[in-house]
């Protein structure tokens, strides 16, 4: 073993960045995480703030979820220079590295849909921050009648099931309040079917019908008139609403890259889907939502990619399988999971109570899983093995 530790810079202290940092052995690596703000967020819980009014905290100091030997710098990053191997902080200070890992996540861009900033201010959303999620809760509580529209704007977004999870939880909310017959709920999506993957859609579409939720497919949101309360599609359709919750277009964060052609048109970083290596560089990686890879923007992806990159940095021949395992809350304490990998399309995984309990149990353990991956690995390995899509596809067709 070399006596000189390899310097690893991880930009972003979210799920992927923190998990990766905690996996790298301290005797081989000197690891530094840089993040613009001091907190690690459990973003999936925005759903329960928005639709259940949950007061459970969703953030913790990044420092508190890192092993004590991991360095943490709170700063904006101005430049990531992959050619000359340095990261420039807001102060102008340059840090060099042996390896750099981009784990900056995704951010939302309201400017891509005219009127969206105003609509968000009025009704909130559950894909950006706590404040907007609380606004959704206020929107639900102030509605007594009319149309609630949940609209998926075209483009990338975090958590594939989340638009429909919100729709189902809104339906449950109004039914429990005795207002279901006075509030129409309509879900609009640019995809050909309510849930884009057909096997899961076979479970979801009948459920939408059963609960009296209207839906519009191939609806490509173009702009919204907040005063008239109308959302217009590129196809010229007009969707009238009394309140609208829009899943905003997501983009990569605003950092200058050298070279800048590693970014796609939405500022996501292009990489190899098996190794997460940034195109053209063998010492630079991207994990989680920041990547342009055709994989779900979801915590489980970041978790599994962090594991693979940690092993590659230690000299192993590791690669991603493309595994997803996204919990999908359909309301009334019921749920399913969206399970697939690069070789197997999504499984028609039955809806039941246990799946929902798994989702809640995971939320309770989230920060512990980040801080002690070595203790949780065997549990996850057993779970992922038991739910391999190659096996499940024979059980659930």
């Amino acid at each position: 073993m070399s006596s000189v530790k390899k310097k690893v810079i991880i930009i972003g202290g979210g799920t992927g960045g923190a998990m990766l940092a905690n996996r790298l052995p301290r005797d081989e690596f000197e690891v530094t995480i840089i993040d613009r703000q001091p907190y690690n967020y459990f973003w999936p819980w925005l759903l329960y703030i928005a639709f259940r009014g949950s007061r459970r905290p969703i953030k913790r100091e990044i420092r508190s979820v890192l092993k004590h030997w991991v360095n943490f710098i709170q700063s904006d990053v101005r430049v990531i220079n992959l050619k000359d191997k340095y990261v420039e902080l807001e102060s102008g200070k340059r840090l060099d590295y042996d390896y750099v890992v981009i784990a900056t996540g995704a951010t939302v861009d309201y400017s891509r849909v005219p009127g969206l900033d105003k609509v968000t201010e009025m009704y909130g959303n559950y894909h950006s921050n706590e404040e907007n999620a609380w606004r959704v809760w206020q929107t639900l509580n102030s509605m007594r009648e009319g149309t609630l529209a949940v609209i998926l704007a075209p483009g990338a977004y975090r958590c594939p099931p989340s638009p429909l999870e919100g729709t189902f939880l809104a339906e449950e909310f109004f039914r429990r309040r005795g207002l279901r017959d006075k509030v129409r709920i309509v879900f609009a999506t640019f995809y050909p079917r309510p849930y884009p993957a057909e096997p899961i859609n076979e479970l979801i579409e009948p459920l939408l019908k059963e609960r009296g939720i209207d839906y519009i497919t191939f609806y490509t949101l173009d702009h919204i008139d907040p005063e008239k309360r109308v959302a217009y599609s590129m196809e010229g359709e007009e969707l009238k609403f009394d309140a609208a919750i829009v899943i905003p277009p997501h983009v990569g964060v605003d950092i200058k890259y050298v070279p800048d052609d590693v970014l796609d048109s939405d500022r996501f970083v292009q990489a190899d889907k098996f190794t997460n290596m940034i195109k053209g560089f063998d010492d630079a990686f991207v994990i989680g939502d920041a990547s342009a890879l055709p994989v779900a923007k979801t915590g489980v992806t970041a978790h599994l990619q962090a594991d693979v990159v940690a092993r590659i940095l230690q000299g192993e021949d590791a690669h991603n399988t493309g595994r997803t395992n996204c919990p999908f809350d359909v309301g009334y304490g019921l749920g399913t999971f969206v399970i697939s990998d690069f070789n197997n399309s999504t499984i028609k995984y039955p809806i039941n109570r246990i799946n929902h309990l798994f989702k809640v149990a995971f939320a309770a353990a989230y920060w512990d899983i980040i801080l002690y991956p070595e203790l949780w690995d065997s549990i996850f390995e057993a779970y992922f093995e038991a739910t391999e899509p190659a096996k499940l596809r024979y059980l659930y067709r």
Partner: protein
Amino acid sequence: MVMSQGNKILVDARGIACPGPITEVVKAYRNAKNGDVIEIWATDPGFEPDIKAWIQRTGNQLLDLRKEPDKIVAVIRVTAKK
């Protein structure tokens, strides 16, 4: 990956599983103007019925839809943007 040349836009969605190709089409559509031509390459078998349904629903024009040995090619003229 999207490449633009004049009023022709090429969308390479090969190797992306459903719903990736239709997402790429919508991304290109978002930035296109009426009269533009979008050519999409995909390998996912679900793309063919999806693009047919998309054309039917959106009222744009399908100029060509063919299977080549290594890909499905769809060529669309944008005509229905409001």
